[in-house]
């Protein structure tokens, strides 16, 4: 997405003789039509490393910040080679140098040593058009934490510029499978939102499914088939210790934490083999049944106020999304009416949208549905797209798709404009679940 040199030389020539006019013109941006938002031109000057001469920076902080912001699809980075100056301190910033280059936003910064394996990172964010300083920040970090702190810096810049909280420092959980048949190995993995830094939290020769985060980000619920029967576990991430919370006869599936973290909604088939939605109070192990229908009722998802649960049911013939009130299991209402297959709903953080698996002819794709109107917009275009999960800022959806016969993870902005494939990881990858915002 870096703009090419020849174009800018032309621009520079035009601008050289008409400096005053070009500053006025800079405020009249020509928007690219066809409904594609124009990425904001941004310059991130490589941060200085102020350690001893000849030593290397411990981590390329500004490089990762730039990658995060570019991958959001909203920013267009200036190539370093085109930079006229490379300030690292506020007093060195000359807005003319950046306005000439048609840059709207400038980021500068420094990394200083602060003790054995300790560093201080300082950065500044400027609105070039108005010549305003928007944000300045200083943080301390160990060497190990420079990666996550780079993501936090990107989050701060993103939120200052867009008003939307960034999700660069959040995590994703997913299931990875390698091998087939008797040599199959399933792993539950937690990685950074960009796919880097994968860490295995569970490992089994038998299938695992349906990872789900607790609202405080400290636990994961999942389904495991160890011992050839399904069971639901809740595992504490920090310790790796897990509780088996449901191992009833038949299906134990699709666990999801309630917004207050106290309950799981899940699928059980203990009543004569018929899958229905239940709620389990984790403290007292009290089970409440929510649906009572000979159809397959499964894949619950909580509304953010905890008052209702969306779920998949084929009671009308094929899978569609329904909503039931959590109080007494009252008022079951159908929500999706477009298409013959809608399943596996996930609710946006503000509760106004659902992401679903929606079939178009014989292709399974991710769509967003307005639950109050049933209006459906297809966002992805694969054959076998599944398991959508909202980012905690509601701006993106991660999902599983197929690429070259192998399962991979992809994300799409909720307006459908920006597509991104998550850094590929080993094995066949599926069932991504986006973490909540970290609670500090």
């Amino acid at each position: 997405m870096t703009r090419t040199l020849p174009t800018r030389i032309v621009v520079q020539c035009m601008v050289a003789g008409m400096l005053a006019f070009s500053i006025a013109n800079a405020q009249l941006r020509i928007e690219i039509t066809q409904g594609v938002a124009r990425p904001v031109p941004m310059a991130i000057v490589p941060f200085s490393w102020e350690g001893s001469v000849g030593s290397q920076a411990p981590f390329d902080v500004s490089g990762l910040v730039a990658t995060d912001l570019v991958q959001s699809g909203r920013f267009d980075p200036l190539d370093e080679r085109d930079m006229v100056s490379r300030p690292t301190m506020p007093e060195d910033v000359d807005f003319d140098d950046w306005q000439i280059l048609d840059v709207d936003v400038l980021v500068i910064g420094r990394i200083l040593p602060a003790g054995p394996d300790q560093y201080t990172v300082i950065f500044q964010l400027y609105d070039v058009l108005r010549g305003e300083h928007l944000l300045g920040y200083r943080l301390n970090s160990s060497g190990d934490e420079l990666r996550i702190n780079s993501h936090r810096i990107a989050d701060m810049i993103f939120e200052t510029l867009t008003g939307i909280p960034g999700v660069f420092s959040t995590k994703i959980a997913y299931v990875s499978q390698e091998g087939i048949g008797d040599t199959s190995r399933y792993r539950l993995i937690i990685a950074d939102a960009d796919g880097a830094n994968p860490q295995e939290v569970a490992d089994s020769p038998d299938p695992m499914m349906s990872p789900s985060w607790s609202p405080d980000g400290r636990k994961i619920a999942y389904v495991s088939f160890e011992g050839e029967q399904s069971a639901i576990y809740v595992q504490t991430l920090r310790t790796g210790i897990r509780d088996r919370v449901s191992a009833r006869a038949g299906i134990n599936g699709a666990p999801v934490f309630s917004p207050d973290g106290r309950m799981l909604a899940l699928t059980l088939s203990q009543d004569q083999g018929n899958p229905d939605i239940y709620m389990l109070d984790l403290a007292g192990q009290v089970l409440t049944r929510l649906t009572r229908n000979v159809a397959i009722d499964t894949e619950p998802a909580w509304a953010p106020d905890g008052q209702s649960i969306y779920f998949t049911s084929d009671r009308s013939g094929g899978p569609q999304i329904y909503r039931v009130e959590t109080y007494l299991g009252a008022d079951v209402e159908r929500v999706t009416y477009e298409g013959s297959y809608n399943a596996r709903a996930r609710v946006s953080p503000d509760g106004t949208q659902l992401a679903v698996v929606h079939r178009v002819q014989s292709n399974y794709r991710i769509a967003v549905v307005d639950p109050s109107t049933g209006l459906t917009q297809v966002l992805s275009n694969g054959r076998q797209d599944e398991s959508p999960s909202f980012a905690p800022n509601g701006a993106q959806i991660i999902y599983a798709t197929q690429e070259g016969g192998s399962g991979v993870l992809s994300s799409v902005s909720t307006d459908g404009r920006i597509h991104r494939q998550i850094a590929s990881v080993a094995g066949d990858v599926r069932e991504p679940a986006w973490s909540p915002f970290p609670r500090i």
Partner: protein
Amino acid sequence: MVRQVWLLILIVAGVALGGCGGDSATVPNSTAVSVPSGDAAGVGANQNSGTSTTGIAGVGGPDGVRIVPGPDAPGLLSSLVVYFDFDQSDIQAEFNELLAAHGDYLASNSDVRVRLEGHADETGSREYNIGLGERRAQAVRRVLLLQGVASEQLNTVSFGEERPAVFGSDDDSYALNRRVELAY
């Protein structure tokens, strides 16, 4: 003399019971009394009692072992899989005889248990496919119950799309994955 006979009878009983521990229904064949191995002291005399038994081949299945359904079993019991149409869990007529054979077998061998493992093809959502697999396993279960199989003999589990029999992404592969397997 009487005491020796009683001792030998006890040894035979001990051997017979010991032989029954592992397999489900092995009938010890013997032409002579044998002493339990590993017994250094050699309890009991290694001599013939007044009674002997002789095994005859060709009765009660090969080697006198009860039939277990599977690739080596005779007739319909050699098949352990029922297939299903897309998005369906009804038993197709072509599988009626197969399930009748298994139903008969189970009804006649009430100590035998079978696990009905339900599966789905990979299209669509995973947990919904767990539901489809379960529904298929339950359909087979109901047919077997109608044949007089006791419900304690039947266990069901659904693997949804997680344990495919074949790995293609075409309709033929999908058809081979929509199945219930009878696991004895």
